[in-house]
């Protein structure tokens, strides 16, 4: 793995007595695409503003390339930000917007002209130099905001929910654009979003945050397949989170039914939380010997590529199931889950941790 470009050490921040970030520590590797993911108010934007130099932490240090930049003002940092509402300068042409940072640095006109051309090409807006900002659509404005940031050749680009204001189709297009840009430019991206799909699609590394804490940090696969707690499991995608008992290693009991699993090391007869993703539940015939749970189909919603269905088991739990096969409500079925698709998590130990969990 490459070396650390940015290190956050024990960052604490509060506003008006309310704790926003609590002792946050995180390393960000050079050349990675890191996403801060969490619900609004989780502290992700504050973290970004501290990195950008717009806020000072109450405690803790920010290291950039090994140097302490905690007290360095925003205009002296080797990084640039793409703001949520674009923050383009409305009284300037596109050209002047992009040239802003370069003119501040007293670059030559020829250099600036080249750079503008290069940046506009990179964001697929060649020939837009003389246009005014109001003549652009939201997606185009966002591309200009990105172009304006990258001409300065930052080592780190901060993106604060940059696609939040765009419609779904455009958002998906821009996601691919951003990945392409990141690969072409070879700079580190830190991306803030509350959209879990966006986070999983684009990032190398996802940091799930809630209430000022990092809940889990890891690759998108790790976050999705091996959530460490109920909050992460619930926030990332749909999931069935059920209480269970870890009878022994590789053996968990849910609602009295015994499941084989691949998790170990929890101890015997320990209460745990179990996550099963809706697409991992297989609907089979009621009399199929593989069936572990038996229930009745209750709800069905057509979602386009899949059916979203609910199957109620005799204990009253409604299992959420995603499948391309339709099973009519009222049908008695059996359910099966592959051992590797069962994710066992520790129950929250302290009340403090419990507070971070999912709202029921």
């Amino acid at each position, binding site marked *: 793995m490459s070396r650390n470009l940015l290190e956050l050490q024990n960052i604490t921040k509060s506003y008006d007595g309310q704790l926003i970030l609590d002792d946050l520590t995180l390393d960000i590797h050079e050349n990675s695409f890191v996403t801060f993911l969490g619900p609004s108010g989780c502290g992700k934007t504050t973290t970004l503003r501290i990195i950008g130099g717009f806020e000072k932490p109450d405690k803790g240090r920010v290291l950039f390339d090994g140097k302490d930049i905690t007290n360095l003002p925003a205009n002296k940092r080797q990084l640039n930000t793409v703001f949520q509402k674009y923050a383009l300068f409305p009284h300037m042409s596109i050209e002047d917007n992009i040239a802003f940072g370069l003119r*501040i640095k007293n670059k030559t006109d020829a250099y600036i002209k080249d750079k503008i051309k290069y940046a506009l090409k990179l964001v697929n807006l060649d020939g837009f130099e003389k246009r005014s900002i109001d003549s652009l659509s939201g997606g185009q404005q966002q591309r200009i905001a990105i172009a304006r940031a990258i001409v300065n050749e930052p080592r780190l680009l901060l993106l604060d929910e940059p696609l939040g204001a765009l419609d779904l189709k455009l958002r998906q297009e821009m996601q691919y654009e951003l990945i392409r840009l990141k690969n072409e430019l070879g700079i580190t991206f830190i991306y803030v979003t509350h959209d879990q799909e966006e986070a999983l699609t684009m990032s190398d590394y996802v940091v799930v945050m809630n209430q000022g804490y990092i809940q889990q940090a890891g690759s998108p696969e790790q976050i999705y397949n091996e959530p460490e707690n109920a909050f992460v499991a619930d926030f990332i995608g749909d999931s069935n989170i059920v209480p269970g008992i870890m009878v022994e290693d590789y053996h968990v009991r849910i609602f009295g039914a015994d499941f084989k699993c691949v998790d170990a090391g929890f101890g015997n007869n320990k209460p745990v939380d179990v996550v099963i993703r809706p697409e991992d539940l297989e609907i089979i015939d009621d009399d199929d010997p593989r069936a572990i749970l038996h229930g009745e189909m209750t709800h069905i919603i057509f979602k386009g590529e899949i059916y979203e269905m609910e199957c109620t088991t005799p204990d009253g739990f409604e299992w959420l199931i995603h499948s391309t096969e339709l099973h009519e409500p009222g049908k008695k079925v059996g359910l099966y889950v592959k051992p590797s698709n069962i994710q066992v998590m520790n129950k929250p130990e302290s009340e403090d941790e419990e507070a971070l969990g999912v709202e029921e």
Partner: protein
Amino acid sequence: MEKLKSALSNCYLSLIVLFMYAPIATLVVLSFNSGRSRAQWSGFTTDWYVAMWADETIMAALRNTVIIAFLSAFVATVLGTLAAIAINNMKPVSKNIIMSITNVPMLNADIVTGISLMLCFIAFRISLGFHTILMAHITFNLPYVILSVMPKVRQASKETYEAALDLGATPFQAFLTVVLPELMPGVTSGFMLAFTMSLDDFIITHFTRGAGIDTISTLVYSQVRKGISPTMYALSTVIFLTVFIVLMIGNYAPEWAKKRKRTV
């Protein structure tokens, strides 16, 4: 029916304009009257305008008026703009208090403002003269500037300022290149307003001027007592036109700027 309606409304509008501008039109006409009579037309002349330009007291008063209007409007615009930004960054409670405090002088009767400024200057042993008129004008212009800049300050996005910092600008550079242009429509209209308020003012100037210094308004007032010379009609016409033109520029400049931007 619709025709009648629009004819009536046009009629109404014309009447309003007539009543508003008839006195001024009379003044303008009389300024070209060769006789001194106010009731009789004796023939067209521009002599009064020539006489006005030749009259050294009138010219001195005109110079004073314009210089005071320009300087007081400029200083009030600078101070008022900075004040508006500062007030906007205050906590809501202090913001409301300060805004009420700045609004009071606008509602205050001019004569009260004038007398209290005069008393204040005397109490602090400041001799009355050009500088006291200037200070007085800056004082009464300030609230108007704050009032016209404030809405723009409130609209201005904090993000563009931060974006400028992010791109390497110092806070001062960011203010000049990004924040100020956003406030500019409010700043220019504040300046225009202050300029015309200062040109117009008589009462406050009357109380804060020292002996031997006159602005147009105080000069007209002192001449009224001696019997008005038609040079004063000519002068009043010039003042009216100046104010009229300044106001027109103030009102239409933003639109012209927009049009020019669009064609570019």
